[in-house]
């Protein structure tokens, strides 16, 4: 297992190198002189030269690339043009806001989606199965911005149960430790604010969970149905095991691999910043951060954001691959 994990991790190196080259070359894809684009039409020659020097654009491209990778390896993502501060420290709270939202959304999606899929397969062609699969179909086809707006209209405007936007009330003061505010307020024993944070999380996380939940439910169901017709399930029944054990032990473990794949991909997508959801719910996440950077043509921030999201995606896939091997002993040998 360990040697498989190490081998699989080393296979990431070429991927990461490729990614850094792609992200690095973004600056060259800008039509015209990047410094000119950044500064706008009325920039003077001196200021352009200054920005060029600041970005290292006066150096040959390979030196620029090695400088870039060198500083990346030291955790330096460069400096934002807009705020003039280090991107690595600036991006962190945004990233954590997205992580918090994603984790909560994926927990909802996995718990509800997997169980709905299991029960649909177990009682397949029953009314539960039909109802669950109709909801799943609606879930995948629902435009997320519409769902978000409806949630806000019903639960904030009409019923006034939950706040409609933001991460916390304007009056709330939070001492960030991890920037995952649910955890921060909890470990500080600040339960009034903890509750406030949780209330702000509910609507966006449900909006964000809907599509993955529906996909997970459908994949789980079809994968379970296939497994439940197999010979070893018949053996498990012939042993006298209860339905619950047959389904949750013998069938689930065998059908979980396609489900894991989907969970990994969906988590990666959500961590990439669900720009629509974050915009509708005023969530200060990485999607919003990047969106603002694109508007301001803040190229170093755009580069760093893309690099970060891509790296997270790659590592989630690594984790999924390692989980495959942990679940299925036959995988290591291939």
């Amino acid at each position, binding site marked *: 297992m360990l040697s498989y994990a190490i081998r699989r991790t080393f296979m990431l190196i070429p991927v990461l190198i490729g990614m850094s080259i792609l992200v690095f070359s973004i600056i060259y894809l800008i039509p015209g002189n990047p410094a000119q684009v950044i500064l706008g039409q009325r920039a003077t020659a001196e200021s352009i030269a200054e920005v060029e020097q600041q970005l290292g654009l006066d150096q040959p491209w390979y030196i620029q690339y090695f400088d870039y990778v060198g500083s990346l390896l030291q955790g330096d993502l460069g400096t934002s043009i807009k705020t003039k501060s280090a991107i690595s420290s600036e991006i962190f709270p945004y990233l954590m806001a997205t992580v918090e939202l994603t984790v909560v959304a994926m927990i909802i999606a996995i718990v509800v989606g997997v169980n709905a899929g299991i029960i649909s397969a177990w009682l397949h062609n029953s009314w539960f199965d039909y109802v669950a699969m109709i909801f799943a179909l609606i879930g995948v086809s629902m435009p997320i911005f519409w769902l978000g707006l409806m949630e806000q209209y019903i639960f904030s405007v009409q019923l006034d149960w939950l706040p409609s936007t933001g991460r916390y009330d304007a009056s709330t003061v939070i001492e960030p430790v991890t920037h995952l505010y649910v955890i921060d307020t909890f470990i500080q024993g600040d339960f009034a604010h903890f509750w406030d944070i949780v209330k702000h999380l509910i609507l966006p996380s449900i909006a964000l969970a809907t599509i993955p939940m529906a996909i997970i439910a459908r994949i789980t169901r079809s994968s379970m149905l296939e497994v439940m017709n197999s*010979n070893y399930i018949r053996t498990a029944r012939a*042993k*006298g095991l209860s339905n619950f054990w047959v389904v949750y032990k013998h069938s689930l473990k065998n059908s979980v691999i396609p489900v894991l794949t989907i969970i990994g991909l969906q988590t990666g997508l959500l961590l990439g910043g669900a720009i629509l959801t974050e915009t509708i719910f005023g969530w200060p996440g990485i999607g919003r951060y990047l969106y603002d950077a694109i508007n301001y043509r803040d190229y170093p921030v755009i580069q760093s954001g893309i690099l970060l999201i891509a790296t997270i995606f790659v590592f989630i896939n690594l984790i999924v691959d390692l989980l495959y091997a942990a679940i299925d002993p036959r995988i290591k040998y291939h």
Partner: protein
Amino acid sequence: MPLLQIEGLCTSFFTDEGEIPAVDHIDFHINNGEILGVVGESGCGKSVTSLSIMGLVPSPPGKIKSGSILFQGEELVDASEQQMRSIRGDEIAMIFQEPMTSLNPLFKIGNQLIEAIRTHRNWKHKKCKLRAIEMLKLVGLPRAESLMNAYPHELSGGMRQRVMIAMAMLCDPKLLIADEPTTALDVTIQKQILQLMKKLNKTMETSIMLITHDLGVVAEVCDRVVVMYAGKIVEQTDCVTLFQNPKHPYTKGLLASVPNIRSKTDRLYSIPGNVPKPGSIQQGCRFAPRCELAMDQCFTETPPIYETEEKPHEVRCFLYDKEGEPRHETTVT
């Protein structure tokens, strides 16, 4: 009282094309310590019979329509799921045709064996483990302790079938149902598995219902034989009589189509035609369209079961109308 007594069992599958009677009014019994062979071509209802006994007929679409299955005097047909669960794997165990896919690929052998014991016995983990190792040794597997930590894919087909047998025998079942246990194995392993089953039958006094299409297997291990055709039992007698004096034209055809190492015929005999689709023959003897001795009567009436000679030898064929009295009329489907 026999260990298992089946009377008038009907199991049907209800599909979009209508009802398909897979097993149609069958009667047989298994005595204590006996090996009963159930023989027939594919699709004649052998496996459905065994799944009916286990209460594992896939439902829907399958359903036991009528009849009775008495196991040690207890009725299984209307038993609750909970009652059936306590019998499955404990009193009645089953092994299947496909050893390659019958074990769960993601759990260790030991885990799967211990789970089978814990379902029925309230034993400590250690005791379950010792019992599992003991059974692995009994079925002739080497290095039983290390096998407990192996996954199914690390074992050969023959070894997996031995593990399946060990798993079935863990709780000392009274009845072992073996559904084509040797079909997927090569001949030398087949022989070993059959000898193992015979040994377990002798030492542990387990009755065995051996389902097979291979008459060689029957001759090797069985005490009595039931011959099935298209969901009905056509002949039932002890093993020696069946091979020496088969009565039903279908049985005769089956025996004639076994290659004989001493005969010089170029062409092997085969029964003309194919097994009818279940439910397609509504009237008369189901074998009549393929039978060389069929009379007019055979196409219009369902033959009853005739008991012949002094030995219990039952046959469902009008040819024996004069030899014995019909035991009972069975309903025409």
